[in-house]
């Protein structure tokens, strides 16, 4: 299996124009930090989020035409920091601060946070009313994360003490197929895409993902790549696992309603069972264990959970709003599958 390789998509504005031009040249060449980055809505900003996404992708994948030494270029990191700041501020504005009584009972606080999910009923809509086009668009959006599933959370492994580290590895080992490549969750998602006539190659739909979709991946990459945010990364994973089983059953049901068989629905069916295990480990052993061992990150654990739900809610609202207007939720509609 070849390593990942993505293509730089067309730039979307001044930030990606500047970044992509520099990335295609020498890593020794200067790259000016844009100061300040002024964005009306950083979470949905196509230009900002794509620039940030590509900057983070240098840690995950090869980019055609881009020298690998750009990954740790100080100029690139300074440029990236200028994008991270408005994004972090926009996310923080959506996240309620942790209450004092939450900090002593992080697993219970996480349960309450996910029970109060602010998002629109996307999985219910898709289950009962989602048409072929909407289901395929949903899969294309999700592929931004699912084709690298678990990788962003793996960044925390070296930074945790033994109890939480074992818990994270217990979850991740299962995410990665128990050590069997074909059973890796990212591989299962690729099979779902193939079954729907979609391109399963990593990054194939990069040009179609709007800013709000890229933001869902940039959120977790930003947490994962900074030791300082290990609490937020753990909270993000816990909330992710805790809000997975039930919606994934609905997405599987939608595909069955549209006539698709197990080779397409297996990803979703597997997640119903796997995340029913993982959510308990993530809430109690991982998040609870980390909060007990390092109480100074307890607030950030809850921040990560709340941030996930808020950014996912923005993303889900974008899909439902577009579909309500009869428009594609992607930057360009998918070509219909030939009948």
């Amino acid at each position: 299996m070849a390593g990942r390789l993505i293509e730089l998509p067309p730039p979307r504005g001044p930030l990606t124009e500047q970044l992509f031009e520099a990335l295609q040249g020498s890593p020794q060449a200067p790259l000016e930090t844009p100061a300040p980055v002024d964005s009306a809505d950083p979470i949905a900003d196509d230009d900002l989020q794509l620039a940030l996404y590509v900057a983070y992708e240098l840690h995950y994948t090869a980019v055609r035409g881009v020298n690998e030494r750009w990954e740790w270029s100080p100029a690139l990191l300074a440029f990236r920091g200028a994008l991270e700041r408005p994004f972090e501020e926009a996310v923080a504005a959506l996240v309620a601060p942790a209450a004092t009584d939450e900090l002593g009972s992080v697993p219970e606080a996480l349960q309450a946070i996910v029970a109060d999910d602010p998002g629109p009923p996307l999985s219910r809509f898709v289950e009962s009313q989602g048409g072929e086009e909407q289901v395929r668009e949903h899969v294309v959006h999700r592929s931004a994360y699912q084709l690298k599933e678990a990788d962003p959370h793996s960044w925390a492994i070296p930074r945790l003490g033994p109890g939480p580290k074992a818990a994270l590895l217990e979850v991740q080992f299962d995410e990665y197929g128990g050590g069997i490549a074909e059973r890796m969750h990212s591989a299962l998602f690729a099979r779902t895409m193939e079954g729907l006539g979609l391109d399963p190659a990593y990054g194939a739909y990069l040009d179609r993902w709007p800013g709000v979709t890229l933001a869902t991946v940039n959120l977790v990459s930003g947490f994962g790549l900074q030791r300082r945010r290990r609490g937020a990364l753990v909270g993000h994973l816990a909330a992710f696992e805790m809000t997975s089983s039930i919606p994934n059953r609905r997405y599987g049901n939608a595909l069955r309603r549209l006539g698709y068989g197990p080779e397409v629905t297996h990803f979703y069916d597997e997640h119903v069972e796997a995340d029913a295990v993982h959510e308990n480990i993530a809430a109690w052993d991982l998040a609870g264990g980390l909060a007990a061992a390092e109480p100074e990150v307890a607030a950030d654990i809850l921040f990560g959970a709340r941030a996930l739900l808020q950014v996912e809610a923005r993303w889900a609202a974008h899909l439902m709003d577009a579909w309500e207007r009869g428009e594609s939720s992607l930057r360009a509609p998918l070509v219909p599958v030939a009948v």
Partner: protein
Amino acid sequence: MPSNQSPGAATITPYPDGPYLVRGEFTVLDQEGNELPLQRQTIALCRCGKSRMRPFCDGTHKLIGFKAPSAPEPWPGD
């Protein structure tokens, strides 16, 4: 770890308001002796009774407000 336990011995842990997680070396047999194929190393068995894929947990306990502690509840004589 207790000295009479090998590292592989099965453990069963009820999670608060959630399923039983089973870890280690174990098999799951139905009442006729058929072995259930397991998809992962650590499994979750339904504790609330309302999963649609029993004996395995599917998260339904959250929808029905299932409440049960991890620690043992009082014995009848307590």
